[in-house]
């Protein structure tokens, strides 16, 4: 499972206001009527860390191994400049998806 901080894409020391802002941003991107699963996950994450007390509870006692994909995803998603694939790459991807 991803941590609520990862789901909302906020830092561990984020305050109430920035968590709420991040939550609303995510809800706008994943409205419940179109993305019910993602929305549920976002909502649960927000409820888990919305207040300072909840964040402390999470930080003190949460006892599950961290989600390594989250770290990788975070690193791979940031600070990149989007590029366009070459024709060959495009054609190979299309060929592979035609066989899927």
């Amino acid at each position, binding site marked *: 499972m991803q941590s609520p901080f990862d789901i909302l894409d906020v830092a561990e020391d984020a305050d109430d206001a920035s968590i709420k802002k991040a939550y609303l941003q995510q809800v706008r991107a994943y409205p419940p009527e179109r993305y019910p699963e993602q929305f549920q996950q976002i909502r649960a994450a927000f409820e888990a860390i919305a207040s300072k*007390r909840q964040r*402390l*509870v999470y930080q003190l006692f949460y006892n599950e191994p961290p989600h*390594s994909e989250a*770290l990788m995803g*975070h*690193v791979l998603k940031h600070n990149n400049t989007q590029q366009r694939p070459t024709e060959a790459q495009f054609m190979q991807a299309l*060929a592979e*998806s035609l066989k899927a």
Partner: protein
Amino acid sequence: MSRKKKHAHHKVVATSPEHLEKKARQQLQSGAYKDAINNYKRLLKINQQPDYLDALGEAYWLAAESQAAKGLYKEAVNLWESRAHSCQQHSHLPRYITWLLAAGAYIKAIRIFNAPPVELNREEQTHLTAMIGAHLLAADQQNIVAMLDADSPLAKDYPIAKAALKAYCQGDENTLASSLKAIGSRSPYRDFRPVLNALLSLDAGPQEIEQRLSRLKPDSPYLALGRMLPLLQQEGALFIESYQKLGPAQQTFVATLQGWDKRQLRLLGDFRKIQLKGGDKALFDFIVANKRFFGEQESAYFCKALLPYLNKATGIFERHFGALSQAEKYRLEALSCEHRKDHYLAERSWRLYIDKLEMASPAEETDVDLKIALVLRHLNKDLPANDPGVLHNLETSLSLDPNDKASYLHLISAYKQSNYKKSYQSWVAAALQEYPEDIEILLEAVAAARTKNAHKKAAGFAKKILTIDPINAKAQNFLRSSHVAHARKQFKVGRLHLVHKELAAAEQWERNGQESGVLSINQALLALEENHKEQAKALLQTGISQSGGNLCAYLRLCTEALCVDVKPSALVSLMPEIKKISPNKTEVMLLVAVLQAYYEEGIGALLIDALAEISPILKKSLKQTLSETQWYNLAECFLTLEAYDLLEYCTRQALKQQDSKPLLVFYEISATLRGQQQHLTYNMHYRLVEAAEEAHDMNDLRTAARIEQIIKQHAGLPFADTGFDDDDNDFEEAENNVIEGIVNMIKSLSPSERKKILKDMPPEVKSLLMDAGVDIDF
């Protein structure tokens, strides 16, 4: 039978057509298509039945489909062709052509598409044209395009689609726009348009992409490619999970769109290897080795989160990310113990963590009080709710952080159940001070005020609830019964005009259709007192009809009469038929609810007398068959009311219908003891010890604790020394284990920690250790 004969017999059975047919059918149903094909072929050699031919065709088709599902398109093609050849069956031709394309047999696919052995309908033709177009785009083989009829849309639009693809890849937006415009709505390449448009709107967000892709039909050849695009909008773990499900070419496509450099790709490759290898240590080492790339802070956070799962990695962590505070080390140790389910050591580490927090300066630790309070509450999660340690932890936690409603409610409920009136009242007051507008707390305040007979105060709280929640049923009931209670007081001193007033006030809070009959019965009592016998009779009739069954009505009649010092017979004589009732199971169980409601009103003592009045009828109705839960509900109710005669009768009846269970033994012995634990006999003690053990085995910890409480309460009486061998006494052994645990824990501490813990040790623990012969100076 000789081995040879046996073999011969087997051969006869195996080759008989009936047996072969049965076997082939079973193989077909169980997915053993190859075997089914072979057997149907053998059957056809024996007999050219059309049924066998159809079945063979079906077996070929199912085998082809199963191969295609595994991505083995050449095998699927061969099986379809064998079916066409052997059975002359050409159905599912579009699927065959699709498999040919997927297998790279473009020329054959186009040849069959141009001259199909069976006619293709328009829909099939459109779908296949689009499919061939997509394959042509993906394969880029001009010689195949040259095979097409030059006037066909497939050939005519191919250069346009190809130009759009090239323009997109080269970032030539003008050519791309004109090419996209040139792809008509009837073109076999029309579905390529929304995919390119979605790619162009990657920065516009997932909704925009979804909207563009929504134009693709479920059977579109571009659907799988299109589905990759929304994943580019995902974050973190979701993104990596989706990415790893893609094929290699699709991953390269996504990696390029993301703009990953070689280092990122190498990192991703290494990460995949770590995932395959598994293990938290490998992941820890991977993050440490790449911390420059992941970022110092992120890596430290991640590796620290892994520490509870690793042995002796703290040193490595500190070498790479700096020293951890002693408090943090204790916290991580506590989490590690919790992970290993070593609750004893976990608690020890949490306590040491608290000690360190208390000693830390504000620069070292923030929110110290709140953290300690949270740890104390956390420590309670594995302990029984009424454990004295739990209550002590909660009380301390509230002194540090008074803002926790759940802790107040826990303390209130525990002290209420244990009948510690002073603590109960003081925690209700504390909760009320912290949460003066909270309905749950106000309801507790009403209940607490009523147990003190402070009816005016209770009414004040109930009214406050109604200002916040005007339709709160509990508050309305409280107010109604509060006025009724006041009316009873006035009745007893003869102020009948005030009784009228109070009953009228109570009526205000009576909810339509949910009357309990209490008001009508009290009005009947008042009418009787004022010598209006007929009116009293009519009111009683109403009261009985509202009481939820005759048994409840009878109880209410008796209770309400006793509450105003009137003999129940005075009321019952007006309604003599109420004594002739035979209540059913539902009425008996409803009585439990009525008794509980009266008990909560604080008139428990009078209920014993009221129950004595209805006892003959009640006992008769307890001869019915009740469920285990129903017996327990009844017994618990009688035990709470201390109605021991009925409790004894109830458990006796239950034991006639049910097997003896620990809880029933508890009720049975409680009934015999009548609250006098000193009357516990050797035999009863023995049964209780056995029942406690059984309850533990059944994981019924509540019952076990209740039984053990009786045993503890009477400990020290003469038989306790004579009845049991010391080695068999689990409780003494458990106590010894606790003492030993405390001693070991103290011995493991540093001298300064030991000094501190001994200084803070409660006197009762010190005396327990000294009683056990432990030198507390160590």
